[in-house]
């Protein structure tokens, strides 16, 4: 396996008023292509911050981050947006679907940034919904779907543009056990059968069991590494 994500000596400091808060301290990490990594740790340990940096949502205060050989910490706003559109799919705890659009249209949104025609966008979104088992709910609005179904739509939206990396921030945090297992099973399928590299932040040890390896963060430092 080759390395997809290379994190070298990454620090992140936030300014809260006059106070400076260092959230990540000189983190070094390699994530292999095709890995399924769970990031665990107490609240405020820097999990989501690290995830945001890997996903290109934020820039490090120091150090370097390369994804697929590209230094994303060097990219400007517009280039970083383009990079995200082509390389990363995001899955959030609260699904973050657009409430006024149907499931089908929600899944089509990332494809608006591609050169695909309207018919191709529609077809790809339909396939993605089929993969997550919601083909029959394509015309439903998010409010007409259960939490588990909404998260599956969000997963379809995350992988519809075929990114190499999926970043998930507490994807089961708002779900009951059965729905959580369905969602985690789906992520596992995407990882094993479709080769997606997945980085998942979770508080739930049971969710972490679905990952190939688990890393623990505490006070902004990687403290432990365990292979599944």
């Amino acid at each position, binding site marked *: 396996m080759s390395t997809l994500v290379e994190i070298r000596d990454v620090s992140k400091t936030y300014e809260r008023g006059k106070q400076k808060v260092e959230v990540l301290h000189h983190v070094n990490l390699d994530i292999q292509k095709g890995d399924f990594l769970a990031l665990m740790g107490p609240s405020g340990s820097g999990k989501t911050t690290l995830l*945001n940096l890997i*996903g290109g*949502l*934020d820039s490090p205060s120091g150090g370097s981050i390369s994804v697929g050989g590209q230094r994303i910490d060097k990219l400007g*706003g*517009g280039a970083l*947006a*383009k*990079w*995200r*559109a*082509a390389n990363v799919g*995001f899955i*959030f705890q609260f699904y*973050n679907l*657009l*409430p*006024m*659009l149907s499931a089908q*249209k929600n899944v089509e*949104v*990332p494809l*608006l*940034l591609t050169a695909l025609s*309207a018919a191709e966008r529609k077809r790809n979104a339909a396939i993605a919904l089929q993969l997550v088992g919601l083909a029959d709910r394509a015309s439903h609005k998010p409010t007409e779907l259960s939490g588990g179904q909404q998260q599956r739509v969000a997963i379809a*939206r995350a992988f519809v543009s075929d990114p190499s990396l999926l970043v998930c921030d507490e994807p089961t945090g708002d779900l009951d056990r059965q729905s959580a297992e369905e969602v985690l099973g789906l992520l596992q399928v995407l990882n094993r059968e479709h080769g997606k590299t997945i980085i998942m932040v979770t508080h739930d040890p049971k969710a972490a069991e679905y990952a190939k390896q688990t890393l623990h963060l505490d006070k902004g430092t990687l403290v432990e590494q365990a292979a599944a």
Partner: protein
Amino acid sequence: MKYLHLIWAALFRRKTRTILTLLSIIMAFLLFGMLDAVRISFAEAGQSANGAERLQTGARLSFIQTLPKSLTEKIAAVPGVKDVAFANWFGGAYQDPHNQVFTFAVSDNYLDVYPEVIVSAEDRKAFADDLNGILAGEMLIKKYGWKIGDTIPLQSQIFPNQEGSKNWSFKLVGVMSSKDGRAFQSGMIILHWKKFDETTPYNQGEVGWYVSRVTDVNQADRIARDIDALSANSDHETKTQTEQAATRNWIKQMADIGLIVTSIMGAVFFTLVLLTGNTMMQAVRERTNELAVLKTMGFSNHKVLGLVLGESVLLLLLGGAIGLALVSVIGAALPAMSGGMINNTHVGISSWVVGIALATGIGLLIGALPATRAMRINIVDALAGR
């Protein structure tokens, strides 16, 4: 265009609020369309091929002052003058002083100088044969449900009859109309000047204004100067001008329609900017998280800016187009309501162009602030609810 469904969906995210905002925009543009039609109608008054051939001669001092009837022959003798007719203001009100009806007491040949006014030969003969007869515009006849032969009571604001009463009574003997319905006579009444002059003690051989038709419009300026020269240094000096200029001056003496329209629309659109701008700001504030999600997916700052601007422009264009389209429907009642004064109530291309430009401009203006705010959303802060 591929983002249109996204913009549309965002626009109608809160249907009630958007519909209420849309209604206020529709009302503003409806008002704009109606007032613009009024402005154009006044601006175009007298602008016709026939109007270009006509000169109006009135007293230089004021249009209220009258002129001697003896000028008729002198004006007719000016080289280049084809016909001369004259008229007096009568100022009629029907049934109620609020029902103002434009009424002129006119010379026998008055209709000869207005060939665009259609009167059947039968009606024209009936008018010529009956000194108490009147011709009424078809719009008035429709409005008040008059029939030929009806006795029409009219109250003059100024002129009493022989009995000293301002209540006059006439017999409707014919109808005036025009091919395109735009001649102002379609909304007025004419009566015999002779009857008027003989009946009211206030008028003794005086006329209000002269209307001359010229043989060559290129000679109009020279003819106007010659006509005015007839009364130079007299106690009734005249001012002769084209029908268009005369109408414009007459309207200006009443009010500056352009200024009134511009002032009203300025106030309306200013209020609209505040109202819609506030709604857009609120709409974007509510969607901070959704906009951050779009950015997460790879929508650039400029794309997000474009989406919000597109939303506000679409809202304004939608409201503007509906408002202007409604003018044609509601505006159909305006000619009858104005007694034929305002005939041009359809929205012309120029009004559409100005309306669409206004809608786009206001849309960009009200969208600018929320769009900039949306563009500057920090993804991490927005997703964290900060």
